[in-house]
């Protein structure tokens, strides 16, 4: 846990605002949010679909939805360098070598027309600077490392010849081929079965331990967060509602949305299981946002000032990993000590 205090952040985003314009609507997908991740650490970004997890994490790298006009403001640094002012060529080099991305759908990363192995080798040659022979060896060893049985044989297979779980492993191998320092996994297990999910999460954890890289896990699956994350940022309608260590956020949540989210997830191992308590209502329409707290319409504790003032993220508790919460109402009502 204290790794974070030893190493500064390797990827850091602050005050990010992302507006997306389609011919019919404009959406504020990210609204003054930020996060950071240090080497050797796993940050989970949690939130419902549409809350802005993907856009916030990948947007600063220039990976944005296609066919949509984008206005992006704020600061983003990778290894201390400002990436928002980089030239497109520098940014694309950084994306290929510094960041590795695993998507929910493996076929969005793999070329269906090419054999698996050569795709990995090409990546290793380009970004890790290996010769053709070295790259082939590296590709086979990456396949093996990603838990693909008989990697020599799988090297010459096409994507459609692999099962869903194997394809996910192949994509992880592809992301690792460039020897990235930040691995971003966007819903890496959502489409997989429970037993295969467990295998993939174990694989990501093992890679992270061995390579000491930073991992960002984007997910709405609290179980996956609990398996992998050191720190958690909870996103609601484009804003960070709460962030802190996984233990603090998952076992002592403060923000009413985080509490509601966790109460809706049953745990059949715990004695104080909450069952399936639901949060009433739905997230706000991000095309017509009201001022104030984004959660106000669904919050049992809402006060008049919640609807007029945006609640600031305030540091609570004195743990070594900062725990921040954007809800002055609970902080005051429960007499939670703040540190800012």
């Amino acid at each position, binding site marked *: 846990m204290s790794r974070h205090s030893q190493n500064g952040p390797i990827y850091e985003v602050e005050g990010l605002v992302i507006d997306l314009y389609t011919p019919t609507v404009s959406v504020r997908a990210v609204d003054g949010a930020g996060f950071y991740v240090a080497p050797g650490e796993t940050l989970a970004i949690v939130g*419902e679909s549409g809350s802005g997890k993907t856009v916030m994490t990948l947007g600063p790298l220039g990976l944005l939805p296609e066919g949509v006009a984008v206005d992006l403001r704020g600061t983003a640094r990778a290894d201390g360098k400002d990436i928002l002012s980089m030239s497109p060529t520098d940014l694309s080099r950084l994306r290929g070598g510094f960041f590795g991305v695993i998507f929910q759908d493996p076929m969005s990363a793999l070329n269906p027309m090419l054999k698996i192995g050569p795709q990995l080798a090409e990546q290793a040659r380009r970004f890790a600077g290996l010769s053709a022979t070295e790259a082939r060896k590296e590709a086979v060893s990456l396949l093996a490392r990603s838990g693909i049985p008989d990697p020599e044989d799988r090297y010459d297979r096409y994507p459609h010849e692999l*099962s869903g779980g194997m394809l996910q492993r192949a994509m992880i191998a592809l992301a690792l081929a460039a020897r990235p320092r930040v691995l971003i996994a966007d819903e890496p297990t959502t489409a997989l079965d429970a*037993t295969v999910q467990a295998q993939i999460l174990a694989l990501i954890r093992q890679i992270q331990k061995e390579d000491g890289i930073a991992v960002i896990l984007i997910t709405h699956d609290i179980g996956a967060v*609990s398996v992998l994350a050191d720190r958690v940022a909870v996103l609601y309608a484009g804003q960070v509602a709460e962030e802190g260590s996984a233990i603090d956020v*998952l076992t002592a949540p403060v923000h009413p949305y985080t509490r509601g989210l*966790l109460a809706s997830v049953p745990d*059949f*191992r715990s004695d104080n299981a909450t*069952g399936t308590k639901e*949060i009433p209502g739905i997230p706000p329409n991000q095309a017509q946002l009201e001022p104030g707290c984004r959660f106000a319409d669904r919050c049992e504790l809402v006060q008049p000032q919640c609807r007029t003032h945006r609640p600031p993220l305030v540091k609570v508790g004195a743990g070594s990993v900062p725990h921040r919460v954007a809800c002055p109402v609970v902080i005051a009502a429960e007499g939670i000590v703040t540190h800012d």
Partner: protein
Amino acid sequence: MTDAPMTDAIVAKGLKVHFQTAAGLVRAVDGVDLTVAQGAFHGIVGESGCGKTTLARALIGLQSATEGQVQILGRDRSDWARSDRKGFARAVQFIFQDPLGSMSRRQTVGQTLEEPLQIHGVGDAKARRARVAELLDLVALPATVLDRLPRSLSGGQRQRVSIARALALSPQVLICDEPLSALDVSVRAQIVNLFARLQAQLGLTIVIVAHDLAIVREVCSAVTVMYLGRVAEEGVAKSLFADPAHPYSQALLSAVPSPDPRIEATRPRILLAGDPPSPRNPPPGCRFSTRCPVVEPRCRETEPALRAVQHGGAAACHLADANIHAMI
């Protein structure tokens, strides 16, 4: 859930669904016996491709069976559907995973809900409007959605519309294929609570195919665990989950992470190697033998039959009830 059931709502015997494909015979469902008690909330779980959807579709006749019989509410399903198609359709309804797939893109929510009433000639226009209002109430949707197109609704709202539509003709049995999978966790809780409420309020029998084991444990009265076209284990949901007898059920449950990282950091885990084999060529003997952590030589020769186990249900394993945490 409710009082002791009078009859069983669904009884399937020796059900097989095989598909002839270019690459060979696919044994999607390969000899399933299933009993769903009246008033039960019955969950069907198992990995992708194990035959859940095919089984659910075969129960209601959306998919013809290669072998076996199905009785619904005490009547032979094929006879009933043949001799009284509308009566059968009123009594038994199916909900698809993708709510949009079962709705017309151009119909408003109001039209979508009224259509089954019209087809079955229920009441006059006024009575039908009243029924539609009642249905919206049942699934807790505001009247303002009546004029909207399904596409413009959120995933949870759409699923409510498809549930309301399935309830329009007051069915006794509802079969749902993964009605939760496409939904976010907090919305999942809303919909699953809606199912539980409807089930209690209307005395429905619900069969639900689901991926989310924690939710099945929470809301279902009974559960069937499938593996590669067969039933691996069945029983009362809470008892089976507390004390799974089949190594596959044990592994499946073990794979579900706890949302509490303190529990997650310390609990023992069973990680299965590999993916399930293809239903094109299931292994001889026990179908789980290629991945089973406690496989024995006899497992590869003799297929285990379902037999009674400690939790009161049944499991198809030669070593049922052996605790594999202790063995591996």
